[in-house]
């Protein structure tokens, strides 16, 4: 046990203090979450009200009679003072009611429940690909620093960073779909299974595997692999670059010299010692890029006809459907906070110094 940890456990020996510490942490965390949420709510709400668009137009369209316009304005509470509208909104949001989307006429929560799984599925596979390739590439680049390999990895990352995703998406469609016929398009599932397959969770790939529908799973896989690879490529660009810099940092440490002196094999030093330590900050990087993908990649979703969250929110924004935008933003906010919390937990699990606590 390291001295600091010992000291901590000594001061924490009084039962009251031992109870208080996690509780305080929890309260602090809750306060941060609450403030973040309130801030999110306030900003999106006021932007929604400030834009020079009449929300009633979004509900009724251009042709509705004046009486209907007035009625809806009243129903939506738009004739109330702004602060009252805000209070009303916060109260509803707290009870889990984000109102009704004017675009789809469904409860916003129902809509999100429908579109979010599509994005989760895509983002998860994308992150798996990005991590699975990005980390080894980054390690390779760090180990062979300055070599041709390093340069190649850098170029791969640079392209991923700078090329517009819709262009790459269309190009890859042209190559892998139109020319080679390796992947399927459009949407999430082929027409042949359109009516026979029902998904319970909204995660098609998992559902198909779970139900033992191998053909469906294969078809779903052929649909998802290209957009997921693209997203994976973009997170790879970020992850490999960060891995490289973390690894360079670790490889310069004295314990590596010590390990070498001890006669450990180079592979063992790199993969078991250096990477093990670089993994700690890397978790945050991966979590952040995952959270980014969960927001929904609008362009990818558009090109691949993927009915996900990004498309939903953009569509709502363009139609001044403020309930849906606010609801979607809050869900994204919650996801971000959730993932941050998760990466915090992982951090603790991975960092041996925090194990004792």
């Amino acid at each position, binding site marked *: 046990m390291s001295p600091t940890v010992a000291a901590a456990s000594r001061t924490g020996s009084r039962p009251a203090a031992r109870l208080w510490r996690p509780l305080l942490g929890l309260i602090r965390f809750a306060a941060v979450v609450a403030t973040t949420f309130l801030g999110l709510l306030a900003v999106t709400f006021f932007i929604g009200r400030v*834009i*020079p*668009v*009449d929300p009633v*137009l979004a509900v*009724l*369209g*251009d*042709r*509705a*009679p*004046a009486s209907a316009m007035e009625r809806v304005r009243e*129903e939506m509470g738009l004739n109330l003072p702004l602060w009252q509208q805000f209070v009303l909104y916060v109260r509803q949001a707290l009870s889990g009611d984000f109102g009704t989307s004017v*675009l*789809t*006429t469904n409860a916003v929560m129902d*809509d999100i429940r*429908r*579109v979010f799984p599509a994005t989760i599925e895509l983002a998860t596979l994308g992150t*798996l*690909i990005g*991590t*699975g*390739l990005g*980390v080894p590439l980054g390690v390779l680049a760090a180990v062979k620093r300055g070599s041709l390999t390093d340069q190649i990895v850098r170029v791969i990352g640079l392209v991923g960073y700078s090329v517009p995703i819709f262009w790459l998406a*269309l190009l890859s*469609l*042209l190559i892998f*779909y*139109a*020319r*080679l*016929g*390796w*992947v*399927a*398009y*459009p*949407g*999430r599932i*082929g*027409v*042949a299974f*359109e*009516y026979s397959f029902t998904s319970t969770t909204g995660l098609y790939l998992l559902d198909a595997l779970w139900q033992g529908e191998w053909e469906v799973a294969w078809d779903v*896989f*052929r649909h998802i*692999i290209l957009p997921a690879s693209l997203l994976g490529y973009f997170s790879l660009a970020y992850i490999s670059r960060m891995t490289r810099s973390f690894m360079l940092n670790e490889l310069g440490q004295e314990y590596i010299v010590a390990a070498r002196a001890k006669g450990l094999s180079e592979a063992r030093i790199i993969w078991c010692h250096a990477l093990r330590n670089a993994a700690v900050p890397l978790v945050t990087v991966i979590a952040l890029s995952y959270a980014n993908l969960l927001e929904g990649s609008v362009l990818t979703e*558009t*090109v*691949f*006809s993927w*009915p996900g969250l990004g*498309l*939903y929110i953009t*569509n709502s924004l*363009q*139609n001044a459907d403020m309930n849906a935008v606010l609801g979607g933003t809050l869900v994204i906010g919650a996801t971000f906070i959730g993932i941050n919390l998760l990466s915090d937990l*992982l951090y603790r*699990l991975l960092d041996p110094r925090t194990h004792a606590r």
Partner: protein
Amino acid sequence: MIVQRLPRLGLRTLGAALCLALSYGAPALAKTPADTLVEGFAIDDIISMDPAESFELTAGEVLGNVYSSLVHLDLDDTSKVVGELAESWTVSDDGLTFTFKLKPRLVFASGNPLTADDIAWSFERMVKLDKSPAFLLNQFGLTGENVTQKVKALDPSTLAITVDQPYAPSFVLNVMAASPISAVDRKLVEPNIKTAPVSDTNKYGSDFGNGWLKTNSAGSGPFKLRQWRANEAVVLDRNDKYFGPQAKLARVVYRHMKESAGQRLALEAGDIDVARNLEPGDLTAVLANPKLAVVTKPKGTVYYISFNQKNPNLAKPEVREALKYLIDYDAIGATLIKGIGEVHQTFLPEGVLGALDAKPYKLDVEKAKELLASAGLKDGFTVTIDVRNTQPVTGIAEAFQQSAAKAGVKVEIIPGDGKQTLTKYRARNHDMYIGQWGSDYWDPNSNAETFTANPDNSDAGKIKTLAWRNAWDVPELTARTRAALLEKDADKRADLYRELQKDVLETGPYALIFQQTEVAGIGGNVEGLRLGPTFDTNYVGPVSKK
């Protein structure tokens, strides 16, 4: 521990996945099933599958294939209607009561017999639900209070509808052809009606099955709705009990595809049979491909530039005329709207009753200069134009800016999001505006009442027609628009609209530019696809595949 295993598991799955993907080497030409028509179509505007609620273009197309109405447009002469559910109809001498005799042995897709009572109830639920399409019936004086008296089943095969004024029969029938006014299977819907205590927002204590019909169908068309997954797909199955000629294909799938380029790739690969949202570039490629074909049809949407009469310069008739000479129609037609529209200068779209085919204007800078000089604006003037930031209107605005500059008219373009420019337009705060107007129903009144009627031009005016929005105070034209609506004789009525169009062409504060054309790219094996003038007449029943 779990944490450490995760990345490794990810790698292994990924490795396996990649191997699988790579081993699938041979490019297999994907083909759609032989009994299924697959359309790539941007369907994200669908909000509901309830005909009494939905009034969006895409949904209209689905509903037109799933439900049937008393009458529908005659696709060979779209200024007329023919009976669909109705075998014949008569109009009472006072012009107020329309009596429809139904065809014998009509059935819904559920197998329930289709009776006049079902249709009367469909009218009732549409009016009482009071959603977007309810105005179609409200304009005949049908309200929640009187609809059950005014629309009545006299016997199982006879339906009487009483309207509040002696409207032109052609007007009433044209409106009846709209897809929202269709027969809904009362027996099938009734067990799915949700009731609630009567309140301000729920006047009748019933949702009339709206909740259920949002995602289910209860129609009698050639197809029935199997499934609608928002932003993903609409699946239709053939209705084997259809009373008309059976649909040739067993299924139709509308897949949501937003990207024109994606639609083209999928069409070329055979993953879709029909591409519905092709942009000019991709359209050219499809046209050049010998294995594919293209079908087109002018639709009921016209694009125009309007001149707000609150602006003193634009209020001068010479200036309005001059501006109409400052648009390069030919160039716009040859480039910006190539394949998606045809130059059109009158406010009634081609194909509707009374549409006037006149194109007197072309770019004529000298003539415009003369007109401006006679208006005392020899050196031109400066004016703004609000434009939504989408094509083709942005391009048209820029073209207009250039050609107008030749006569000294400096046009400042104010780009904005669609809803934003529309909000400004509706508040009459614009100088000029590029707009589009789609007919709500296939009758001249739909456009006439907005382009030429302005009952109250004050700022407090409640009826915000396009004439009102441009502060065009025309009591005389308003009265003539009204008269045309009541003209019994269809030919005379058509003449009245031609006169109105001539007047607008000469003096109106609108420069009509083009009429939208709908285009569909189709696979070479698709036969019988014919687009109608409206979206709800894009019938897929006669389509077959080789």
